[in-house]
């Protein structure tokens, strides 16, 4: 393992969408090294906080040496990060974990709920760069909380909102299932790769829908979010229940895992901010 702590600098801070901050970090080695779906542990210095905060890279640009992180404020640590501005120093540990498997020829559907969309700009860019056909399905509470479709150049972007203020009114999982047009032919949906990230209830709804429509769970990759301590496999805090029994560590075997490896009945939610 050759992960090291590195001081980096905030190059830019902006509002990505309502309620979400985007920090752009200048750190060329990390921008080159990170793969889509991998994460970093960001050190925070808010009073009385202790642990680093794990965030997936939203995107990276090796040419300019920049990495983007998109997040909302859910606690003291994320509030401290959100208050950083251009020129401030930030201590990064990473890139960590396993990203999405983006190789292959099949069309890809990226489906995200809430802040789960934060991992996808770089993922979609990498998929498009490989010549793959990409559909982005994004769900949010309101239209203002959607990441603009311009962040997914080359992809077919469709949205859902809980309040109906944009796109389909309802769950983003509904949006997906409408493409599972019955009757389900053998090949059609097996020929799609589904990449997802979002709150646990959304993920379990997605898994249920996939089972109902006989979509193989092995074709679904999930970017897991669990409470996390070290991020490198020493604290054993980020356990996720494995279908085969026991637990996998989100930080080492994930965060991106095939959905058929997880015991979704035992999956819990909740993490510190």
């Amino acid at each position, binding site marked *: *393992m*050759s*992960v*090291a*702590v590195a001081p980096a600098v905030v190059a830019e801070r902006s509002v990505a969408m309502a309620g979400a901050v985007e920090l752009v970090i200048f750190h060329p080695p990390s921008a080159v090294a990170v793969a889509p779906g991998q994460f970093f542990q960001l*050190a925070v210095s808010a009073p*009385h*906080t*202790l*642990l*680093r905060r794990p965030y997936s890279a939203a995107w990276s640009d090796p040419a300019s040496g920049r990495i983007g992180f998109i997040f909302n404020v859910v606690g003291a640590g994320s509030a401290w990060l959100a208050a950083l501005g251009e020129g401030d120093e930030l201590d990064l*540990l990473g890139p960590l974990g396993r990203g999405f498997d983006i190789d292959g020829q099949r069309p890809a559907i990226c489906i995200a709920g809430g802040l789960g969309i934060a991992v996808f700009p770089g993922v979609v860019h990498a998929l498009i760069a490989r010549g793959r056909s990409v559909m982005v399905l994004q769900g949010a509470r309101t239209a203002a909380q959607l990441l603009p479709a311009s962040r997914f150049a080359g992809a077919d972007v469709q949205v859902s909102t809980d309040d109906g203020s944009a796109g389909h009114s309802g769950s983003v999982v509904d949006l997906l299932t409408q493409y599972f047009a019955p009757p389900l032919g053998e090949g059609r949906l097996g020929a799609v790769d589904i990449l997802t990230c979002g709150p646990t209830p959304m993920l379990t709804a997605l898994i249920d829908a996939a089972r109902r429509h006989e979509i193989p769970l092995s074709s679904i990759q999930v970017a897991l979010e*669990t*409470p*996390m*301590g*070290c*991020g*490198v*496999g*020493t*604290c*054993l*805090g*980020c*356990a*996720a*229940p494995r279908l085969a*029994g*026991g*637990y996998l560590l989100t930080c*080492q075997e994930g965060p991106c895992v095939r959905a058929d490896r997880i015991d979704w009945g*035992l999956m*819990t939610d*909740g993490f*510190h901010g």
Partner: protein
Amino acid sequence: MAERPDLTVDLGRGLCLRSPVMVASGTFGYGFDAPEVDRSALGAIVSKGTTLRPREGNAPIRIAETPSGMLNAIGLQNPGVDHVARVYAPQWATWDLPVIVNVAGDSVEEYVAVARRLSGVAGVAGLELNISCPNVESGLQFGIDPVLAAAVTHAVRAVTELPLIVKLTPNVTDIVAVARAVEDAGADAVSAINTYVGMAIDVRRRRPIVSRGSGGLSGPAIKPLALHAVWQVAADVHIPVIGVGGITTPDDALEFLLAGAAAVQLGTVNYVRPQAAAEIHAGITAYLVQRGLPDIRALPIRPVSALAHV
């Protein structure tokens, strides 16, 4: 400039460390996964708690951050002693850094079996008996009763020549009584302390955050408590005391050494600042140089009987 001060530590039975800065059990895995740091500052690695059979650990959620601290209820997830002896120890044997295996169990027989399996295995530099893990069904009871603590120490002592450290729990009325009991039973050193039992509740979900309800509290939040435990134990026992609990900075480590610890273990800080060990080693060195002290044995602010002998 005077000669470089001597930071070596003798924990007894031939276990000599080049540095008083160790890493605590459960915060460094088995030495293979931690981030890249300069390990020349480390005196020893203490492994994750290891049991006779592999254990899957507790269901999530296993950890929670609390003010300046962290609760954990991992539940001794580990691959079992056989895997440790067959796969990990041969790699440790090639390192220039001693690895001490933290041993856990539910019964005296289990501790003895694990100790036996590790005895004579190249790469295993010593044992640290975890008689105080708060996150499994039994385990803790050995550490809270001087008689049981002595019994498990004595039984392990009888089957191994390895240096034997006993890690004390602070969740007791009289930690000195337990320390004295394990010293009399043959421990070469004690680590003080393991985590404090604590809890946190998610007020929105109306349930404890950690799935087991309670967990072990570590981090800066417990440092003053740990320091006081070390202060008490070091005044009473005649074996080296390893101070552990919330150490984050060089001054934190110096406080423990001044209180009478022969060495220190870094725990939760390893998750946050992997470079802390090197900084703490450098800070201790600078402190000794500034005061013209020849070695760390000159640090305790009261006479410490254990250190007078080594």
